[in-house]
């Protein structure tokens, strides 16, 4: 469906992307993960044909994105990372305009999307909050039912309830066979929808992994509060380097993947409380990146 081959673009100042390659299969939801400034949006701009690659190419259903700009857009829906609508319109006028440009006659689908995302399409765009613009952008990306939808940081600005509505929407479309490329810097967002994800850092693809594999790479921090202080010390000693004593009864343990061993190790002690902190994505990248550099 979508193939990015050895895509390279260098900007002045050393930024850019280098040798980026990945493939998104039909019907797949593909995550594109990376910290801010890693090159996610630059890659997406090449897919949309906004930029000419220095080397490599992007093809969508066999069409080169630079050569066939204007044609491959027929099969695309796009939500930009930073949404800017043309001035002087309300949401409805904008969506009418986009529908006309896309040559899409199906207004029923649009009405249904507006109902689900719950916003007043008649609000003038300049009076819209960020979240509301995001909703209008999502409708514009989905309403013409394109076979491939590209979403750049789709849930930024949405409240948790709307994030859930959005995720349901993506999963429904996926069930209908729509292909997605979704960029994000939040692992949680990708985790719930994607089949596979590419991790990009400093303009290079670090890994393309199955989502379950990525989940197992993510370390979780458990903060366990024991009833007895002695137990806390005994537990920390047993866990070794992974554990760290916090004020008396509380121990912090980093766990990656093997939850059974962790559960077994706390079972002997009476426990008052457990808190879980997911390691943030940047830290996962750091880990992964450091490891792969060591291996290389």
């Amino acid at each position: 469906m979508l193939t990015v081959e050895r895509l390279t673009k260098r900007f002045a100042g050393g930024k850019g992307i280098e040798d980026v390659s990945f493939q998104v299969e039909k019907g797949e939801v593909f995550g594109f993960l990376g910290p801010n400034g890693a090159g996610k949006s630059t890659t997406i701009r090449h897919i949309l044909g906004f930029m000419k690659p220095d080397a490599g190419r992007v093809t969508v259903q066999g069409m080169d994105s630079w050569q066939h700009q204007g044609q491959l857009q027929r099969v695309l829906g796009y939500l930009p990372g930073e949404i800017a609508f043309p001035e002087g319109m309300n949401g409805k006028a904008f969506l009418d305009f986009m529908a006309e440009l896309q040559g899409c006659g199906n207004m029923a689908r649009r009405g249904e999307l507006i109902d689900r995302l719950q916003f007043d399409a008649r609000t003038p765009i300049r009076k819209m909050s960020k979240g509301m613009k995001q909703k209008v952008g999502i409708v514009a990306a989905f309403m013409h039912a394109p076979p491939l939808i590209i979403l750049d940081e789709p849930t930024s600005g949405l409240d948790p309830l709307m994030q859930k509505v959005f995720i349901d929407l993506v999963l429904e479309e996926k069930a209908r066979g729509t292909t997605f490329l979704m960029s994000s810097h939040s692992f949680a967002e990708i985790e719930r929808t994607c089949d596979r994800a590419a991790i990009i850092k400093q303009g290079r693809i670090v890994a393309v992994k199955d989502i379950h594999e990525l989940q197992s790479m993510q370390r979780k921090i458990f903060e366990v509060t024991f009833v007895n202080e002695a137990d806390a010390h005994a537990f920390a000693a047993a866990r070794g380097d992974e554990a760290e004593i916090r004020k008396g009864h509380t121990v912090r343990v980093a766990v990656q993947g093997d939850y059974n061993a962790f559960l077994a190790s706390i079972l002997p002690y009476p426990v008052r409380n457990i808190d879980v902190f997911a390691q943030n994505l940047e830290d996962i990248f750091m880990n992964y990146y450091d490891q792969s550099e060591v291996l290389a």
Partner: protein
Amino acid sequence: MSLALYRRMLSLHLKTMMNYAVGSAFYMVLMLGIYPSIASNSQAIDELVAAMPEGIGRAFNLTSGFGTAQSFISGEYYGLILVLILSVFSVLLATQLIAKLVDQGAMAYLLAAPLTRGKVAFTQASVLVTGLALIMGMTTIAGFAGAAIFLEDGALDSGRFLALNGMAFLLFFAVGGIAFLVSAVSNDEKRALGISGAITFGFFTLDLLGRLSGQLDWLRAVSLFALYRPGEIVEGSGPAPLFGAALLTIGAAAFAIGIVRFRRRDLPL
């Protein structure tokens, strides 16, 4: 050319275009309204102009005198005020049609739709030309209407008046073309506005200085505005068709280069 985009852009900018067009038409009618009282004293005014330093008369296109309606209008409106109004209009609208959309990011939506960049740029250029045609068209109609109301039959030479309007349109086709080219290659709206504004008013100033002083005459050779000589057109002297063709060529080339450059460049969207 995308009709959907053209309609949308036209409706977005129609109000501004109409403001310029109505303002220009109104000024035209006003000028023709006061012309009969000027005409009865035209000899005195011609003497007054003759008494002024020669450069001043040339600089503000007053040399054709006030003997006929079209020469009065050419001096009083087409020589300075219309030129300034349309310069501002061309530069502002050309900047809004491409550079502003790129700078703000709204261009991403136009290009995420199945429109080629060539189509988008051509459509935006058409909107600019439509605006110029609208303003000049309304001004021309107002001229004929004003003449019918205030002047005696035949007091306005329609052929020369049309030629004057046609030439003014061609001048701004060229000025607009250059402003469009600047807009099409710019990522920054303010910068595009600054550059095309500087080019347009730079040309204007060179032409004005060249006319003010005989010694600076050579300055006109490098100014686009030197191809537009309202005084000569209403007198029927000077190589107007040649100048007109030159303006048309420059304008068409600038638009074409703008479209081509816009197709090939990286967009920061």
